[in-house]
C-alpha cells in the first residue's frame, strides 16, 4: 500500500501544481468567428494586440462555445468577458443572459443591423461587429465557356446553368461547386439567394409554384455540379485544387484562393432570377454575458473593436467588412478587393433584391435551417418529387413560425403576427 499512497500523493501534488498556475487578467474573448488557425493568429497579432490590458482570444466551434457559455450562465459565474458570434447564435439566446449595451455609445452605422441586434427588446443586446456576404467566384479557365452575350457581373440563373453546362460538356467534368458539406453554408443559399430570386420571399412563398420552379432550376444546375459537393464546406479548397471552377460561398471561405493566386480567379455577384438578384448579408456581433468577471474591461474591448482602425484591421484578418463608416485603404489583400467589389456590384445592381437574416426565431433558428437543408437533401440528393417534398416540409415550417410568432422579414411582405406560410 505504501507505493500506492506515494503515487496518490504524487497525483495530488501534480494537480496542485497544475491548478495553481497564475491567472492572467486578460479579457477573455470567446468567439465563434475567425476560427481557422491563420485567422485566429491574425486576430491576436494584428487586431487585438493594440488593446490596452491584453486580450485572450479564443475561437471555438459552436458546440463548445455554447456549452461553456451556458455552463457559466447556469453556474452564475464565469470567466468569459466578451462574446463574438453570428447574429444567429445571439438570437437563440435569452436576452437576459446578455448585458444591455444600449448605453455604451457605440453601434453600427446601419440601422437595419442595430435593429437586428436588439433581439426583439428595445435596446442593443449585442453590438454589430462585422459583416460579410455570399458571392460567386470562378477560375479564369472557366471564363471561355461563358455563354455568348452573358455579362459575368449581371448573370441570370439560366445563364449560370448554361455556363456550368458548357463547362461540363467541353471538359467532361461537372465543375460547378456548391458548399453542401456538413459544415457548408448551403441553407443560406436557399434562404437568401434562390428563394428571393425566384419567389420574392422565403417563408410565405416556401411551397408556392414559383418555389417549385426554383427547385427545378436548381436541380438543373445540380446536373452540372461536382457530385463531391456534398463533401465541400470551404469552396476555396476546390477552387485551388481545380475540382470546381465556378462556385458559390461565403466571402471569407473564398479568401484563401484569391490571396494565394490572385490572378487565377474572379469574384462576381450572385445570379438573378425572375424576381431579382437575391442576396443576403452575414452579420457578426459582440456581446457581454451577464456573468462577465470584468464588465468594464469587456465594454472597453467592445468599444475598441468598433473603432474604424480596428475594423480595418479586422477586415484584413478575417475578410469580414466593417459595420461602421471606415475609409478602406488601398493596400488591402487581394481577397478583400475581389470580394468587396463583387458585393458592391451586387448591392448596386438595378435588380438587387436584398434579403435580411431570419429574425425572431429564437432557438428555432436551427430548425428553420433544417427545413431548407432537408428539402435539399430530399429533392436534389434523394430525387423525390418537388411538390410533395415542399408540401410536406411546409408543415414543419409553419409550426416553427407559429411557435415563435416571428413576423415576416424582407423580402417577404410584412405580416401582422407570425409570418404565414401560404
Amino acid at each position, binding site marked *: 500500500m505504501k507505493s500506492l499512497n506515494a503515487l496518490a500523493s504524487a497525483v495530488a501534488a501534480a494537480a496542485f501544481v497544475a491548478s495553481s498556475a497564475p491567472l492572467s487578467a486578460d479579457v477573455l474573448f470567446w468567439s465563434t468567428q475567425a476560427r*481557422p488557425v491563420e485567422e485566429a493568429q491574425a486576430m491576436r497579432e494584428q487586431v487585438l494586440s493594440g488593446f490596452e490590458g491584453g486580450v485572450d482570444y479564443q475561437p471555438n466551434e459552436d458546440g463548445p462555445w455554447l456549452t461553456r457559455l451556458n455552463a457559466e450562465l447556469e*453556474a452564475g*459565474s464565469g470567466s468569459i468577458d466578451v462574446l463574438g458570434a453570428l447574429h444567429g447564435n445571439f438570437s437563440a439566446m435569452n436576452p437576459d443572459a446578455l448585458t444591455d449595451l444600449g448605453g455604451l455609445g457605440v453601434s453600427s452605422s446601419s440601422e437595419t443591423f442595430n435593429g437586428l441586434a436588439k433581439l426583439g427588446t428595445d435596446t442593443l443586446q449585442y453590438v454589430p461587429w462585422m459583416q460579410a456576404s455570399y458571392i460567386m467566384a470562378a477560375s479564369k479557365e472557366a471564363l471561355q465557356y461563358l455563354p455568348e452575350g452573358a455579362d459575368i457581373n449581371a448573370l441570370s440563373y439560366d445563364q449560370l446553368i448554361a455556363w456550368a453546362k458548357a463547362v461540363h460538356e467541353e471538359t467532361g467534368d461537372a465543375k460547378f461547386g456548391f458548399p453542401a458539406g456538413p459544415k457548408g453554408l448551403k441553407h443560406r443559399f436557399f434562404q437568401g439567394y434562390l428563394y428571393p430570386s425566384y419567389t420574392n420571399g422565403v417563408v410565405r412563398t416556401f411551397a408556392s409554384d414559383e418555389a417549385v420552379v426554383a427547385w427545378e432550376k436548381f436541380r438543373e444546375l445540380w446536373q452540372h455540379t461536382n457530385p463531391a459537393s456534398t463533401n465541400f464546406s470551404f469552396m476555396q479548397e476546390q477552387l485551388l485544387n481545380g475540382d470546381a471552377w465556378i462556385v458559390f460561398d461565403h466571402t471569407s471561405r473564398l479568401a484563401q484562393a484569391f490571396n494565394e493566386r490572385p490572378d487565377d480567379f474572379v469574384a462576381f455577384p450572385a445570379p438573378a432570377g425572375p424576381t431579382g438578384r437575391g442576396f443576403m448579408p452575414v452579420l457578426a456581433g459582440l456581446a457581454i454575458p451577464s456573468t462577465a468577471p470584468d464588465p468594464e474591461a469587456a465594454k472597453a474591448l467592445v468599444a475598441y473593436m468598433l473603432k474604424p482602425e480596428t475594423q480595418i484591421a479586422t477586415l484584413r484578418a478575417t475578410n469580414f467588412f466593417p459595420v461602421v463608416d471606415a475609409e478602406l485603404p488601398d493596400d488591402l489583400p487581394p481577397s478583400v478587393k475581389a470580394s468587396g467589389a463583387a458585393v458592391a456590384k451586387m448591392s448596386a445592381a438595378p435588380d438587387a433584391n436584398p434579403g435580411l437574416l431570419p429574425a425572431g426565431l429564437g432557438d428555432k433558428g436551427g430548425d428553420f435551417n433544417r427545413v431548407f437543408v432537408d428539402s435539399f437533401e430530399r429533392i436534389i440528393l434523394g430525387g423525390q418529387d418537388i411538390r410533395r417534398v415542399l408540401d410536406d416540409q411546409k408543415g414543419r415550417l409553419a409550426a416553427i413560425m407559429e411557435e415563435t410568432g416571428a413576423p415576416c422579414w424582407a423580402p417577404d411582405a410584412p405580416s401582422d403576427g407570425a409570418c404565414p406560410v401560404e
Partner: protein
Amino acid sequence: MTDTAVLLPDQGQTRKTGRWLYAASVTLLCAWVIVPLYFLLINTLSSPETVNSFPKSFVPEFDLGSLTFFAGFQGMLTALKNSIVVAFLTMVMSILIGAPAGYALSRFEFRGKEAFRLLILLTRAFPLPLLALPLAVMFIRTGLDDTAFGLALVHTTLAIPFAVLITFSLFSGIPVELEEAAWTLGCTRLTAFTKVVLPLILPGITASAIFAFVISWNEVFAAAVLTIENRTLTAFLLQTLGEAPLHLKFAGGFILVVPALIFIFAVRKYLFAMWGIANR
C-alpha cells in the same frame, strides 16, 4: 490465417511458401498502417500550392512553411505542457482506480457484479459532449474549472472502462491456482498479489496506460469547454483543424500525432516485458 493454414508438416516446399506468405503479409500489414501516415507527412512538408495540386507527388519536397507557422504560435509550449500533465494524471488515476476493480471482477462473485459492469460500459456508450454542460457547471461551482486536474478527472472517466476491462480480462487469464499456491507458501493476499500477479499483468497495465494517455491526448470537446487559461494542445489546435486551410490542417494533424507516437514507442516494450515469464 492463410499463411498458417497452408503450413503442413514435412513438406519443405509448402513450408517455404508459408514462410514467404507470412513475411509478405507482415510487410503488407505494416505498409497498410504506414502509407496513409506517409501521405500525411508528404502533405505536412509541402508548400500550400503543392498540397492543392494534382496529381500529387509521392515524394515530400521538405517545405517547412506550414510547420514554421505553428512554431510561431504563441502558447504552443504551455499547451503542450498542459496536455502532458493532463494525460499523465489521467493515466495514473485511471490505473490506480481501475485496476483494483478489474481484479475484483475477475476473482470474486458478488451481488451487483453485472450492474457494476454495465455501469462501467455505460460511460463509453453515452456521448461526452452532452455531459459536458452539467460537468462544467459543477466544475465552475467547485473551483475545479480550468485546472489540469479537473480535466484529468473527466478524461479518467473516459479511460476507466478501458482500465477496468483490460485488467479484468488479463487477471482472468491468470490461473487462480497461481495465487492460491502463493498463499500456501506463506504469502498474504496482498503479497501474493504484488509478488505473483502484478508482474504478470504488467503488459495489461501498459495497454491501459497507452489507452488512457491516448484518450486524454486526443480528447477535444471537454478540453475546449473545461479549460480556458490552461488549454491543452488538442483544444488549442485540433478543434479548429477542420476549418483551417488544407496545408495547415495536415501540419496541425501531424504535430498532434507525433507526441502520441513517441509515447507509444516509449512504452511499447512493456507490452512484451513479461513475455518470458508468462511463457515460462
